[in-house]
């Protein structure tokens, strides 16, 4: 039984957890204050014979205080979160040296495309998708795609290196979610969305679909393996050999 957030597995995790904890502390103090206050009032001002309530319509001073304090807190929180948000999802947030992996979601499986030796993903097009021969719709006319490796339900990423996932969906909206990485991004048909992260701890994790996508939503699961760079290269070579020419 987990009583806290999942283990931290990416560079985002410490920042997001810090943010979470900070909000938890602020809201926790408010929560305890309000609930204790309520209990105190319930006890101290319970009805007793002969008592009469204190007749007042309010206090402008008190109201200004409890308007201003939340307002200031919220503005600070907004500014703090926005910096992190821009770093994770902002328009130009993807680092230039990020390693590209194509992630193609369909009912109810994940297909991962690895760029091969040239380090580039081939062009894909929804029109070219064929169920068994070309599950991600790689374009045979694009030379960058000839060495691409297409693997089902297994994501392999190198540790300590920014990875950018090019998310595409074939049918309905899915959502790319690895709890340990604290990364979640909906995968929308008709759009190619970039989502990046940097894994920090080698190991095996689970990738789940977190947007209702149909009957098999609950089992739309993939395994994420974080390797050291050497292991990753070895895995890549082994898989390429097994697969032969992955496409066309």
């Amino acid at each position, binding site marked *: 039984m*987990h009583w806290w957030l999942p283990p931290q597995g990416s560079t985002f995790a410490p920042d*997001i957890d810090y*943010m*979470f904890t900070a*909000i938890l502390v602020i*809201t926790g103090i*408010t*929560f305890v204050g*309000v609930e204790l*206050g*309520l209990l105190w*009032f*319930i006890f101290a*001002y319970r*009805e*007793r014979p002969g*008592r*009469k*309530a*204190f*007749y*007042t*319509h*309010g*206090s402008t001073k*008190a*109201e200004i205080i*409890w*308007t201003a304090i939340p307002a200031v807190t*919220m*503005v600070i*929180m907004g500014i703090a*979160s*926005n910096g992190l*948000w*821009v770093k*994770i*999802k902002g328009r130009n947030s993807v680092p230039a040296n990020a390693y590209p992996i194509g992630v193609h979601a369909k009912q109810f499986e994940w297909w991962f495309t690895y760029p091969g030796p040239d380090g580039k993903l081939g062009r894909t097009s*929804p029109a070219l998708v064929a169920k068994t021969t070309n599950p991600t719709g790689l374009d045979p006319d694009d030379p960058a795609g000839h060495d691409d490796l297409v693997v089902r339900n297994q994501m392999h990423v190198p540790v300590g290196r920014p990875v950018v996932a090019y998310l595409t969906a074939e049918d*309905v909206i899915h959502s790319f979610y690895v709890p340990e990485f*604290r990364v979640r*991004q*909906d*995968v*929308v*048909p*008709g*759009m190619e*969305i970039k989502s990046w992260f940097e894994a920090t701890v080698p190991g095996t994790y*689970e990738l*789940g679909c*977190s*947007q*209702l*996508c*149909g*009957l*098999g939503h*609950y089992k739309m*699961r993939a395994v994420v393996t974080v390797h050291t760079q050497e292991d990753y290269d070895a895995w890549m070579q082994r898989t390429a050999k097994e697969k032969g020419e992955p496409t066309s």
Partner: protein
Amino acid sequence: MTTVAATAQAAHAHHDDRSFIQKYIFSTDHKIIGIQFLFLSLFFLMVGGLLAMQIRWQLAYPGKPMPLGNLLPETMAPGGVLLPEYYLQLVTMHGTFMVFFAIMLLLVGVYANFLIPLKIGAHDMAFPRINMASFWSAFASGIVMLMSLFVPEGSSRAGWTMYVPLSARHDYSGAEFGQEMWSISIILFGLSSILGSLNYITTVINNRAAGMTWFRMPLSVWALFITAILGLLAVPVLAGAAIMLLFEQILGTHFFDPAYGGQPILWQHLFWFFGHPEVYILILPAMGMVSELIANGSRKPIFGYHSMVFAIAGIAFLGWIVWGHHMFVSGMNPTLGSTFMVSTLLIAVPSAIKVFNWMGTMWRGNLRFHVPMLHGVAFVAMFTIGGLSGIFMAATPVDMFIHDTYFIVAHLHYVLFGGSLFAIFGGIVFWYPKMFGRMMNETWGKIHFWLTFIFYNGTFFPMHIIGMAGHMRRLYDPTIYDFLKPMQPMNEFISICAFLLYGSQIIFFVNFWWSMFKGKKASQNPWNDNGLEWTTPSPAPHGNWDTLPTVYRGPYEFSAPGASEDYLPQNRKLPTDRDPVLSPAAGH
């Protein structure tokens, strides 16, 4: 016109010669329509809860035959084991029933209808026949939605948010008729809601009694008025979107079909542009009612009446520019994400004002813990949790992690159950004498309250914890994931609490029906309250008053110095009060 109608209604109050059907079925009396809405929405509350119980069974004991499950047809649960397609129908219909047909009808249908004319001192709504049409289209809409569970392939399976393309195509979701019936039902519901809203707004603006100025209106009327504005402007957007979804299904249009240049995100924008004001439609009336309950229970004027009104208006205004916080990870423009984050965080400010003002109302009061007051205080305590957990989601980076997990489920139930439903229960007990002329049983009311309060927290608080651990929503079988397996004991605990919670509601329903016939006869003003509704007999007669009351003060003059009792009705004329000036054309 009005005066003629008024005289006619006044005459009715003495001599009611309407037939049974006119009186109770196709009635134009706002009180009867409110009670009709009450029965309808309580029915849907029960059905929605029953669906939730099945969801909870499946989550706690995935794949095990459900007790009584073999009563369900083979297409839903062969041998009592729920099918994935039925599970998705349960998830979808639980959300739809609860949001649209239970809570929204309870708050807006029941309380707006019943309370607005009684509280502002009017004989009836501005448009009684439109009011009746509003009820019957809601009824038709509810029937269509309910029937959709029983058509071939069952009801919609796309979640109550109906994200496209899943909801738009049969080969994606596997539901055809059920999906179309969802759209049709929502269009009918939209019609009902718009007709209701325009009625409430007109009534509040034009039909207030003499002396009932804007700032002498009870907070519940303020909240219902502003809610009606939200509904008036938000629901047509949903109706438009539902029409597009329906055409997508039956005419083969391409609004949301990316293969033809359509945009799935557009649906989310339209849906949440309606959906977020909808969230406030589901909580603002509850806030208004709780203000009444707490002021009455504390025997004290509401703390900061004006700022309460401005907070309601502020929440309603901000409600229009925050819908994007449902879409932070949807692939929406991230700059919009920043904008929506700031506006969302700002909503915490008026919400905080309200919570502190309720506490200020209780401060140095003379707290009388009748059942409505218990529910009111529970509302404040639970809404605080729901409001504070909302801050986690407003912060975009944190939302990226907890979005679509049980943390969200916990949050929304803390607002909608811990908030709205507690206020609704409190409100039913409070205005029950005015509806049926009898009191609900106090002891059983208290037992129901405590059981509900305990099991409710047992059900929903642990959801925060499994949500933090990453438990996703809408999973048919969470044990598929290795990292969710350790959470199964917690899921079981939640489910057991949920069953007990549902069981506790039986007490309320029995109390509700029993009291209707056997309850203690209610006096005219059993709670010693100030509102105008307590100046007419219980139950209120057709037409409410023979001569409309005149209002001399605000609604919360409890424990005023110099008054003989600890309350001072709005219409009681003290020697120092002057009559409101009414020129023939202008009457404020």
